[in-house]
């Protein structure tokens, strides 16, 4: 499914790049781009990176961008191997990866390009409106197994999660289940359903009032209900939104990054400068992510 999404994403960029210059296409030759930027990584970010690439290529015909997904880890590995120019990552680069980069003779440079809230979602029929991080942790560890315990109906809790290769899965494990404590070795309860896609999670949540799940705010549809989350038991309970991510009151939010091979220059630098411009950050808002700059 992931491979397919990646393939389609690449195709769309290629097509749009072709379509944006109908005149050139008619003359029988595609315009010779003076710069070719390879961009790869996080699946959470692939739609965003794609939208940026489309818009940027419309304005700068001389630049050609290719965007692929595959996961944050895959993107960073490709950057370390020198096969991409920009790696997208929904998590920060690790110390081990920086070390590898240094032995390969360069220093990866980090750019925060957007922010993303992870929304906790349930079926609209579920009367539970809010949960604390502590309660979420206990639910996903398998210590709370009935909605009654957290103020809901007498129903079993069905835990949903993305597969273990997802950056979102790892972030949720560290921030929610282990509550940010790096010495904690707790893991997901064994009966957590690991679904291969965001669509799978939404489909099950839409239908099943027993289920609880999580996903990037950009992927949440109106068919499911978003839960307000608090850092401490007893509140205040905060719903995820651009405002609450910005003022850091919503507890499950993270930065989205782009990494480059040393300090960027030329076309790559121009592109990264544009990515944090108001125009590009408007696309961030449109896709349901949180911009890093205020309008």
């Amino acid at each position, binding site marked *: 499914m*992931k*491979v397919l999404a990646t393939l389609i994403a690449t195709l769309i960029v290629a097509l749009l790049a072709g379509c944006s210059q109908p005149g050139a296409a008619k003359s029988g030759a595609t315009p010779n781009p003076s710069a070719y930027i390879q961009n790869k990584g996080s699946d959470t970010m692939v739609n965003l990176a794609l939208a940026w690439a489309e818009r940027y290529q419309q304005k700068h015909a001389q630049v050609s961008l290719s965007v692929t997904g*595959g*996961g944050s*880890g*895959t993107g960073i*590995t490709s950057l370390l191997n020198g096969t991409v120019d920009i790696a997208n990552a929904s998590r920060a680069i690790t110390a081990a990866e920086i070390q590898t980069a240094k032995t390969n003779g360069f220093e990866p440079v980090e750019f925060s390009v957007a922010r993303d809230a992870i929304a906790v979602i349930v079926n609209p029929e579920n009367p539970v409106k809010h949960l604390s991080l502590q309660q979420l942790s206990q639910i996903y560890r398998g210590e709370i197994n009935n909605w009654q315990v957290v103020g809901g109906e007498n*129903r*079993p809790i*069905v835990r949903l999660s993305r*597969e*273990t*290769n997802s950056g979102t899965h*790892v972030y949720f494990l560290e921030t929610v289940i282990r509550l940010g404590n790096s010495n904690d*070795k707790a*893991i*997901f309860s*064994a*009966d*957590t*359903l*690991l*679904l*291969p896609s965001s669509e*799978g999670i939404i*489909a*099950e949540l839409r*239908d*099943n009032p*027993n*289920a609880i799940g999580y996903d990037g705010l950009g992927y949440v549809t109106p068919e499911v209900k978003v839960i307000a989350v608090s850092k401490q038991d007893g509140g205040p309970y905060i719903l995820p939104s651009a405002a609450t991510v910005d003022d850091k009151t919503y507890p499950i939010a993270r930065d989205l990054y782009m990494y480059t091979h040393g300090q960027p220059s030329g076309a790559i630098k121009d592109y990264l400068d544009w990515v944090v411009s108001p125009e590009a950050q408007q696309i961030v808002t449109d896709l349901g992510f949180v911009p890093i700059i205020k309008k």
Partner: protein
Amino acid sequence: MNDQNARREFVITWIIKLSGYSSILFVCLIFFFLLREGLPALVDTSLASLFGTRWYPIENYFGILPLVLGSLVVTLGALLISVPLGLITAIYISEVASRWEKEILKPLIELLAGLPSVVLGFLGILVLVPFLRRFLDLPTGLTALAGSILLGLIAIPTIVSISEDALNSVPHSYREASLALGATRWQTIWRSTLPAARSGVLTAIMLGVGRAIGETMAVMMVTGNAPVMPQGLQALFRPVRTMTATIASEMGEVANGSPHYHVLFFIGIVLFVFSLVVNITASSISNQRRKRSERLLS
């Protein structure tokens, strides 16, 4: 002229021979590759960990037991569904149906075999899973049972077409003799035709099992993929994670040469051995049949 013909004959014989042997070569190469990539798992992780009960590879829990049992539960469930249905369908087509019914039914069942499993999985998510949850009042419809039903549908065409062939090859004289002795139509089918075709029917079932245990996409979409240890009969109504789904969803992201990578190949070896056993059983049964019919003819 003659010389040229002989040379041509020689070349053609060799081409045919090579293509015949190439499939053996490919199977051997695949098996050696699996062994080379999978056996280091025994060194990377302790045996106790490999046959443990918890699968969570990103924290180095490599217990493959829930995955093996998960595959078995789903396949067993598929058998419970596809064997009776497939067998009855085959009997109907071969023994009861009129000519025009036969002409409609056979192509339709073969069409079922051609249905891509991802399409079945999609229908499963949208229709079967919500239905199972409501109808059986389960916590979630993403269960082994949902996978079993889809796999049953996938195995049915194999079982039907092979056992129908077996039933057809039972000599007509058997049926005539049975009917002449005063047996009813049902008694003829149940007591004489079906036993005569027994080995062909068993082959059909084994091939159906082989089809079911290796299926990936449909299973991954509807079984929930939770690596829980199946406990008792109720395991059928709980989520499971199969070996095939695990390989499919994790192979893409795993670092080359890591313990996780080796363990995934080790699961591949287990899967390979499973289908090898199933196929060997199937072919030994059908060889038996040939010997017996030879005996009958002599």
